[in-house]
């Protein structure tokens, strides 16, 4: 059987999961640096316990560790998320449209920042990382139904804030 202690297996786990762990923590923190540190620390824990963790369990192990690390860091910090923008690359739109889009994105950013952490994380893992509800449920350690609830509430809250209702 593959062993997490083998460097190849470990590197593979790192490459396939570190980006999502990074995003996951970033959505919660809104702090790139801290998210980066959490990724490093979570994988250090995995490396230290490589004998006890099977490759199949390694992924959820890393998420659990990352989540615990997040909980240990001061959560009171104000979340300030900024999202890189793909749509800027193509701009053969009218200036008015671009202005409108820009405005909308600003509103979306603000709305996201004011969301409860768990709703924001669920929403962004789905929208940005394309994670299925079941995957998010596994990462967060809750039921799929709970994730659907968070997603529903997130959509409702974002819409009402953006539309100013």
């Amino acid at each position, binding site marked *: 059987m593959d062993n997490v202690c083998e460097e190849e297996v470990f590197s593979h786990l790192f490459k396939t999961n570190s980006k999502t762990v990074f995003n996951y923590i970033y959505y919660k923190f809104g702090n790139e640096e801290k998210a980066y540190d959490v990724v490093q620390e979570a994988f250090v824990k995995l490396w230290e316990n490589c004998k006890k963790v099977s490759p199949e369990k390694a992924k959820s192990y890393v998420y659990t560790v990352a989540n615990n690390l997040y909980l240990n860091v001061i959560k009171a910090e104000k979340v300030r998320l900024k999202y*890189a923008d793909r749509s800027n690359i193509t701009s053969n739109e009218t200036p008015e449209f671009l202005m409108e889009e820009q405005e909308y994105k600003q509103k*979306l950013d603000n709305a996201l920042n004011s969301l409860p952490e768990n709703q924001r994380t669920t929403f962004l893992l789905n929208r*940005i990382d394309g994670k299925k509800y079941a995957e998010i449920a596994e990462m967060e350690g809750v039921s799929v139904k709970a994730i659907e609830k968070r*997603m529903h509430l997130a959509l409702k809250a974002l*819409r009402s804030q953006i539309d100013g209702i």
Partner: protein
Amino acid sequence: MQENYLAKWLNNDLSEEELAVFKNSDEYASYEKLIKVSGSLEAPDFDVDKALDDFKNTNLTKDTKVIRMSPMKKLWRIAAAIAVIFVVSYLYVSTLDESVSTQYAERSEVILPDNSEIILNADSRITYSEKNWDKERKIALEGEAFFKVAKGQKFTVATADGLVTVLGTQFNVENRKGFFEVTCYEGLVSVTYNDKTTKLPAGNSFIVFNGNVVERETPANTTPSWMSFESTFKSIPLNYVLDELERQYDIEVETQNVKLDQLFTGSFSNTNLNLALQSISTPSQMKFKQEGNNVLFYAENAPQ
């Protein structure tokens, strides 16, 4: 609308009816826009390769530590295993029986825990348990030995061919391939051969060769002749005599045109080989040639 319909809609889990109703609602356009725009969001750049390199660099020290530590652990494990093996084998060996053996042209004297004496002739071996000696005086013998047994409990000599039991006496036991002889020099010895027990008084021998049992009187010596460095035979097939010659001098004996089953009566010296060769060859009407450790006996009349 069902519970969490917005999540269901995003996951394409709404029924056609529900979807139609939702699409007709005022809010639908807002949600569609929200989904479209949020779909173009991106998380900050994350360079996986750089992160992995960082990881390896900062944890390389830990890595080497692990490597450095583990051989020590292994060493300790090996050391512990060796210690266990030593202790166990010591305990095992200490329960094993004592054993004394002699090679060709070699003799040995053994004093047993009760001061009984055993003198081992050449190419012989005794085994006994020192621990259980107080409970049971028992010796396993291969070859030939003279016993001076101290008075006490039953003393048993076990050989492949028969059992010799005494209380306290002096006797000789010889057990070679196809040959079993017990001679009593003092007291009374009981010999068990083929489940038949024979009482052997002093001055008597119990001899078995080739399955034939012979009981006969022996010269009134107090010790077997081999202890005076002479091997004595009375009507014994020649091949046993030659075997004994090999054992006493550590030589190789070969024969040519010689009847090995002819009976030999006489003795040979255990200290002078030339004399011994003559002692054997003359009465058997043989000649001999000696080259180093090899001796060839051949019939007097045979052409060479």
